[in-house]
Structures are given as structure tokens and as C-alpha cells.
């Protein structure tokens, strides 16, 4: 089969986000994950005008115990499904969930798929501590999922991110303090997001006073953990056209990258994941997501990315061709990535300030922005993009 033949079902059907719903980002007392998810689902159904009985597919991002597994969710929320799936309970799979939904729709496995990012962090101690449900992952055969090596004191997701950042700053001769631009821009955006967990604007002085957690990363370089529930309802494009809101079309996508030189919290080739240090040239505009969508980086109006730690924003901007290698920190200065800047990034505040939603806050924000529903945060946009340091990306636009 030629490439075109392979893509045919996808191109014929098309996939769209028809409805979104979220409970917001913060603490919700003892409210259950099921209740949070139900509220998000009700909001998403109301948003697009579908009924619960129309939902025949469910994709779950974060499973039990922080969230609910797909079978629990279906049983507790009275969903009768003919298609269900679930990813490993890590933040990196938001784009994967959306992509699996799009593929399932294209191949007719379901008609209306609800993608759910619903989980509570508040009942547990912080990620990296022994009271976090993922603590046992530190002892996988291949080491922790973010390079954690407990017996060496390399603990928490921040350890690998800090090593990557230090090497990145060294490689390109970047001043550490320039990272502040990311934290400040996203906090300024969150200030006009009523759902954000952290809304108090921060200054450069606040950033400089922020304590180190693991050098060179400060507290304000770290995402803010929250409880949340978000439901994103996806249908084929033709069906979405008949629903309440205008469809937000998936224009193109590319999957997660992995391999010996990839590291979730760093650029390829930094040598942090115990492999070679290599000269890395991001493929930028040559990333396949662009040719699949028929657009180029210049066409993207607003960019939304996974930001567990602030330097990930810089690495993602470089990976997808918005800034040249090693230049994103300079590129992002002087408000360029703020709401009022030339290239607004993570306009809801992202994981750093809206709260760590594992990408779901950014996904609903992309939909709001493209619909013109972002209120005080509205930016002028026709094409919005999701991308990550781990290589997956989705381009969204209008029908």
C-alpha cells in the first residue's frame, strides 16, 4: 500500500472535538473521581448536545488509584461501550488518547468517544515520595520513568529534568535566569483564567526568590499538582457538524517518540538518559505532523505544550521549529509567548499555573481558543497546536 492508501480511511472520515467539559483545577475536598468525571462528562454532553446514551467509546488517561480504570468508569458512570482503552497512568499520554480516539473513529470502532482525564492528587503525598501511588515505578527494570535512581538520591520527576536543564544551559551557554520568562508568561495568562489553581501574578524578583528544589530548577519552574476532571467528546467530522458547537478538527497528528536517545524531560541527545551525548538538530518544520496537516510552523497561531517543568516549553518550541536550537530562551523573552505577545503559548496557564492536568487543561483551552470562547484570554487564531518534549503533536483547526 502506498502512504496515501494507508491514510485513506483517516482522510475520508476526519475526526473532531465536538464537546468539552471540565470541573477546573484545584482541590475538591473528598469529592470522588467518579463524581468529578461525571460532572465533566455532563458539561461536555451539554456543550455538544449529545446524550449519555450516545457515548459508545471511552478512553481513560489516568487510571486507578489516582483516577478510575476504564471498566470502573464505565460501570460507575453508566456508559455502555463498544470501544474502550486506557493508557499507563502518566502525564505524557493526553495526545496519545486523542490520537487513539481519532483512529478509532476513522476505522468505525465507535461513533462518539469520550476521552477522560480525571484524577485526584490531593489524597496522596507528592510525586517522588513514598506516599505517591507511582512510587513502585522507581524500581522498574529500566529505572524510574523520569530517570529516577533512588539509591543514588536521584529522586522525583524533577531529578532528570534538572540534569537535562543543566546540560542544556551548558550546551548553549544560556543564562539560567532566562527560564523565568516561561513561568511569568504562564502565570500572567492564568491570572485571567477563573479555573486556574495559581492566579497571583509573579514578577522576575518573585522568580529569583523562589527556592531551588533541585538545581537549576526552582519551585516556580515546577508544575502545580491539582485534582481535576476533563471530558473531551470526539466524533467523526460529519457527525460533529450536526452538533451544537462548530467542530474543532484534528488537522494532523504524530505519535510519541521513544528510543535510546529520547528522554521525556529533555531534548534528544542531551545524554541524560544514560546514552550518548549527540549533536541534536530538531527537525522543526520537517516534523511529520506538519506535512500530514498541510501546514507549516508559520501557520500556527497558538501553541500548547506539556510543561511539567518550565524548560520543557523551550525544548518543545525548538523541537517543533518555532525557535532555533538553543535559542528558545532568548526567543521567549520580552513577552513573546504571553497572551499579548506575537506567539501565545499555554494561554490557560499550563501545568505551571493552571494546574498539572496532564495536558487536558491545554486541550480544552485549544478548543476554547479556536471557538472564540476564551474570554479575556482570547487570542487571534485559526490553527492551534499541541506538542510535547516527547515528540507527539496534534494540529487543530476549523472544519
Amino acid at each position: 500500500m502506498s502512504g496515501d492508501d494507508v491514510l485513506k480511511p483517516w482522510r475520508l472520515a476526519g475526526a473532531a472535538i465536538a464537546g468539552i467539559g471540565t470541573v477546573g483545577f484545584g482541590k475538591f475536598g473528598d469529592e470522588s473521581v467518579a463524581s468529578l468525571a461525571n460532572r465533566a462528562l455532563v458539561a461536555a454532553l451539554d456543550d455538544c448536545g449529545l446524550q449519555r446514551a450516545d457515548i459508545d467509546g471511552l478512553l481513560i488517561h489516568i487510571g486507578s488509584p489516582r483516577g478510575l480504570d476504564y471498566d470502573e468508569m464505565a460501570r460507575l458512570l453508566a456508559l455502555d461501550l463498544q470501544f474502550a482503552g486506557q493508557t499507563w497512568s502518566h502525564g505524557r499520554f493526553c495526545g496519545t488518547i486523542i490520537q487513539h480516539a481519532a483512529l478509532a473513529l476513522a476505522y468505525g470502532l465507535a461513533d462518539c468517544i469520550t476521552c477522560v482525564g480525571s484524577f485526584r492528587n490531593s489524597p496522596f503525598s507528592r510525586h517522588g515520595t513514598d506516599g505517591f501511588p507511582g512510587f513502585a515505578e522507581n524500581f522498574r527494570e529500566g529505572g524510574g520513568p523520569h530517570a529516577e535512581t533512588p539509591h543514588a538520591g536521584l529522586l522525583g520527576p524533577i531529578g532528570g529534568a534538572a540534569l537535562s536543564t543543566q546540560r542544556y544551559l551548558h550546551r548553549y551557554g544560556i543564562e539560567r535566569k532566562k527560564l523565568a520568562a516561561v513561568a511569568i508568561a504562564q502565570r500572567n495568562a492564568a491570572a485571567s483564567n477563573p479555573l486556574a489553581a495559581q492566579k497571583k501574578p509573579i514578577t522576575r524578583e518573585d522568580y529569583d526568590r523562589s527556592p531551588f528544589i533541585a538545581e537549576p530548577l526552582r519551585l516556580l519552574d515546577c508544575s502545580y499538582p491539582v485534582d481535576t476532571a476533563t471530558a473531551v467528546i470526539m466524533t467523526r467530522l460529519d457527525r460533529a457538524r450536526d452538533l451544537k458547537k462548530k467542530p474543532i478538527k484534528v488537522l494532523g497528528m504524530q505519535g510519541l517518540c521513544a528510543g535510546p536517545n529520547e528522554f521525556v524531560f529533555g531534548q534528544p541527545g542531551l545524554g541524560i538518559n544514560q546514552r550518548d551525548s549527540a549533536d541534536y538538530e530538531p527537525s522543526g518544520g520537517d516534523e511529520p505532523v506538519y506535512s500530514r496537516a498541510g501546514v507549516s510552523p508559520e501557520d500556527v497561531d497558538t501553541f500548547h505544550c506539556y510543561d511539567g517543568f518550565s524548560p520543557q516549553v523551550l525544548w518543545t518550541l525548538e523541537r517543533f521549529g518555532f525557535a532555533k536550537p538553543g535559542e528558545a530562551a532568548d526567543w521567549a523573552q520580552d513577552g513573546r509567548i504571553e497572551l499579548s505577545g506575537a506567539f501565545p503559548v499555554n494561554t490557560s496557564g499550563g501545568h505551571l499555573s493552571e494546574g498539572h492536568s496532564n495536558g487536558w487543561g491545554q486541550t480544552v483551552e485549544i478548543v476554547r481558543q479556536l471557538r472564540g470562547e476564551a474570554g479575556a484570554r482570547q487570542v487571534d487564531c485559526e490553527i492551534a497546536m499541541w506538542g510535547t518534549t516527547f515528540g507527539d503533536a496534534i494540529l487543530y483547526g476549523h472544519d
Partner: protein
Amino acid sequence: MPFRDFPGAGDSTRLRPLIVSDNAPFFKGLQEGRILLQKCAACHRQRSPPVPCCPWCFNGAHEWVQASGEGSVHSWTRYHKAFLSEFAPLLPYAVVAAALVEGPIVYGRLVIDTALLTIGMPLSAVVERWQDGFCSLAFTPKGAEQ
């Protein structure tokens, strides 16, 4: 390699890595004061972490060879917050990604911290021995152990 007692709190019980066929010789080597690295039987490159096939030529055969313990800082971090109580008495403490002269990059605690810690700083490996006998790979600035 010199041995040093782990100066933090408690033993290694809940911090020990999963020992499997691939990494067992490495951790056994540390108990004997040696860093052992896999060396590909076909292309002769040395590698870490231990894996069942060569990441460059994919050959499945290897031998274990002793590394010199010399290297330099590939990257580093310094923790100001303790995620686990074992390390709380040590704050702030540094961890390095060390580039061994044999090639591989390995992680280890920098057991003698220094304000001079920087990328490229020469390192010497040591073995950090927990009170229950478990041994971790660790580093000092080169020359600091003398």
C-alpha cells in the same frame, strides 16, 4: 575503588533497584569495589545501563569488563528538598550524571560536594555502602579522596 559509609538515615531496604539478569553483575561488582560495564563482543563498545543487546550494533553477546572509575561531570543537580527521609540529613546534596572515560554515562551521588561543581569537572568513583551492606555507585571530585 574506596568504600564510604552512606551518611544519611536508615538502610537501603526500600531503595534497592530491581536486580535482574542484566544488572546483577554490575551490583555484585560494586560489592567488590569494582565498576563492571558490559562490552559488546562484536563492536567492543562499552555500555550502561546493562541491556541484552548492543545499542549500536545490536549484537547480543557481551563480556563484563572493569572500568577505571575515572570520569567527568556530564551534568549535575543539587537537591534542596528531600523526597525520601533517607536523604533528608544530607541536604543540600548533589547528584551527577558522570561520563566515564570508557564512554558510558552513569548516575551517582557526589559524596563530597563542592562549590566548584561544574560540567566537565573530573570525578573519581567511590562505592557508597549502606548500613545494611547494599552498595551504590557514587563519586567524589577527582583528588578529593586523597
